[in-house]
């Protein structure tokens, strides 16, 4: 079948098809390597590729640069890596409208560059923005240190274009910031990890870039001191763009509180005074400008993808439980990052018994009613672990959604929650 499929795709997109082992391995997911890598050059070619793969009864996974492909279950079937990175144009950008329409393959970093020239930005900061496409950002619902103050992907996507599993090209939403015409398919596809449709185009709300951005780093006694400080600052409503506790070396290891402040001069100065009043720690670094400030936060943003570790988990809890979750994880993790406002903790572990560690972490999270996302785990456990926990109460409805929109299971079969 794969030989036929490769030739059918070659008829469509010519040398956009690769079957050499090196090319295919670059898009392997866990232990599964696709038979074909297809890189369509435009939206119509992409649509045709999906159609051909579906009609062949084969399965595809939409990808950008593959930076986040570790997220999700190993696919049940994976014949074609459908690379969307060639669809990378900006379709519409009128700065005064504060909206931008881009093709799904444009990277987040490239978009930010264009927006910055107009004094604007998309206040979302996924890990590794230079290798993260807008399609990937939306499909994987990625976030970073900014999400505690700026919101999540779902708050910024106002329109989209997508290819359905049967090859229909559809649109939803629009290019205006307020719009209730038709169902909100933007919400349905955000975070659906390529299992319902292949995104081709996304319209986003953008925001003015803050006039001033500064970064302060405080050295703290230990992880608990950091967690306590951050939780207290969140409770009094410190106006910070980002506020992350970074703890390394387990119990007794060192901890830092990294804070991004932004706004007009007076706001930044006031927030800084508030910080220095409330945080009992040594100030390590005060960035001189915006570029330096973002450089400090970049490794924190990228941590979930770049860290070493046998197991990496993300846990999201209610704010009043999040600190306790983080504190427990910090004791065991080689590195732990905690955001009091979004309730998110990301932790990396070195372990000789990953299965038991995962169960232990999940059980602790469950006692606090938290959500767990397994960001990385050893290959040997593929098929044995559930990546997202707890399984949602409406899983049956979600399965029906998948069957209705992708009855042949063409799109990323098995990748999603509960093996959808």
């Amino acid at each position: 079948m794969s030989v036929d499929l490769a030739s059918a795709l070659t008829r469509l997109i010519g040398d956009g098809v690769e079957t050499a082992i090196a090319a295919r391995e670059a898009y392997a997911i866990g232990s599964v390597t696709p038979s074909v890598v297809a890189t369509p050059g435009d939206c119509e070619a992409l649509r045709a590729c999906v159609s051909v793969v579906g009609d062949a009864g084969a399965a595809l996974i939409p990808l950008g640069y593959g930076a986040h492909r570790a997220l999700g279950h190993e696919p049940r079937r994976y014949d074609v890596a459908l690379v969307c990175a060639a669809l990378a144009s900006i379709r519409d950008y009128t700065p005064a409208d504060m909206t931008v329409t881009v093709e799904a393959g444009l990277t987040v970093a490239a978009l930010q560059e264009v927006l910055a020239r107009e004094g604007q930005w998309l206040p979302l900061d996924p890990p590794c923005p230079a290798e993260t496409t807008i399609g990937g950002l939306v499909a994987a619902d990625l976030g970073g240190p900014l999400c505690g103050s700026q919101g999540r992907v779902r708050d910024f996507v106002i329109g989209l274009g997508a290819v359905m599993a049967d090859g229909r090209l559809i649109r939803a939403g629009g290019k205006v910031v307020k719009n209730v015409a038709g169902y909100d398919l933007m919400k349905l596809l955000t975070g659906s990890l390529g299992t319902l449709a292949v995104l081709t185009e996304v319209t986003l709300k953008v925001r003015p870039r803050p006039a001033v951005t500064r970064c302060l780093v405080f050295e703290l006694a230990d992880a608990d001191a950091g967690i306590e400080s951050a939780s207290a600052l969140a409770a009094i409503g410190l106006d910070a763009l980002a506020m992350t506790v970074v703890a390394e070396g387990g119990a007794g290891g060192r901890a830092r509180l990294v804070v991004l402040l932004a706004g007009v001069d007076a706001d930044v100065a006031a927030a800084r005074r508030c910080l220095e009043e409330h945080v009992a720690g040594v100030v390590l670094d005060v960035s001189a400008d915006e570029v330096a400030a973002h450089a400090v936060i970049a490794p924190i943003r990228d941590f979930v993808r770049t860290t070493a570790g046998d197991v990496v988990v993300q846990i999201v809890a209610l704010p009043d439980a999040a600190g306790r979750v983080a504190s427990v994880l910090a004791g065991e993790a080689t590195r732990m990052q905690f955001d009091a406002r979004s309730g998110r903790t990301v932790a990396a572990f070195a372990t000789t018994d990953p299965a038991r560690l995962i169960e232990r972490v999940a059980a602790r999270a469950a006692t606090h009613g938290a959500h767990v996302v397994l960001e990385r785990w050893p290959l040997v456990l593929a098929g044995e672990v559930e990546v997202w926990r707890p399984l949602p109460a409406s899983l049956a409805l979600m399965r029906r959604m998948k069957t209705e929109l992708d009855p042949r299971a063409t799109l990323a079969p098995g990748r999603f929650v509960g093996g959808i």
Partner: protein
Amino acid sequence: MSSLETARLRDALVAIVGAEGVLSSPADLSVYECDGYTLERAQPDIVVLPRSTREVAAVVRLAWDAGVPFVPRGAGTGLSGGCLPLEAKLMIGLSRMRQIRAIDVPNRRLVAEAGVVNAAVSRAVRSHGLQYVPDPSSQSACTIGGNIAENSGGPHTLKYGVTTNHLLGVELVLPDGAVVELGDAIEHTLGYDLTGVVCGAEGTVGIVTAATLRLEPMPAAVTTLLSIHETVADATAAVSDVIAAGIVPAALEMMDRTIVEAVEAAFGFGFPTDAGAVLIIEVDGPAAGLAALTAAVTEICRNHRARSVRVAADDAERAALWKSRKRAFGAVGRLAPNYCTQDGVVPRTRLPEILAEIECIGARHRLRIGNVFHAGDGNIHPILLYDERDEGEVARVIAAGREILAACVRLGGSVTGEHGIGVEKMQELGLIFGPDDLAVMRQVRAVFDPDSRANPGKIFPTSGGCVERRRPARQAAL
């Protein structure tokens, strides 16, 4: 339904909710013949008012078994006929589900039942320094369930987003009577974001009985400015410059002369009735930077020939200003026996064009049209004044409304920003979406509601026969 079927259904409903929760006399039913969109009216056969999720589920299950479609209703303040009982003659009113089930101050969450009034949510948490941000103009009457169905907005959504941005989870009764929980209190989505799909689905996927809402702290400091301009064009240019300066106000509202006249007659705030347009601009944030922000906005308004820029002196004046704005729709009743509020959206930069277009359309149809709208969002609300006793004028109102929406679409916008499609705009939905787009939406609907039992005959344009089919319903208004 035949009268026998209706009688049988009524008895079964009484067994579930008690006799006082079932309405079927013509006098009782007349209250439910329309919502805030009064151009069309239709009476339900039965209105049932359950008090709990269990009762809603039992009612819906009964309807499922009897093969009877239903239409959910909140407070009936909708503006697109979303709860009009056209195809479904069983109306399920949620107004008796008024419990706030939980308030979690440390985590800034609140669980409200569908019938809780929007303003009651903020009232319940004000003493904790918290608020529920979405604030539709009808907030003193409209319900959380209705807000979710319509994905309602309001003046303060410019900076803070609409209902969906503050909704974390819902309890949903599916059309077969099953109760499902979508989402939860945690700021993270597990699986598909079905909460996000239900929000704005206008009651076509089931009945939301309760919702988990995110609360926000009250802003540290707020300044509300009133800028008086000679012309709508000057006011619009000021709006553009505020946005271009990188300022995101909490609200940025405009009223034109027609509306100001009505509002002033009703509330006597002190608006000059000879001004071409007034802007209400609210900026909020940390106290430290607010003075600079206020100064910047003031300067921009002055640059656009503002006759005066006045800062609300205190909370009382600020409240009076907002009351004038939010009750503008009602005040319009002084200008004409009837009015129809339109709801369209254009990209912010196209506001001058759409306002000029509306003026032309009004002149062409010999209609008086006032404008009160969310200028910062590009969300316009032309108010078309008419007299329903004049059949020709009613027809012109409908035609002008359609032309205004078509113009919004031509300018890159949408046919509804916050009022919904309902019955009013089913044909207009076809202006922005093609058959495949709508087919996928129908598929999504079928996942929840395979037999179209929940609020049938809404949102989706029917092929051709729609106008004829709806004509009898329209007659009541004409």
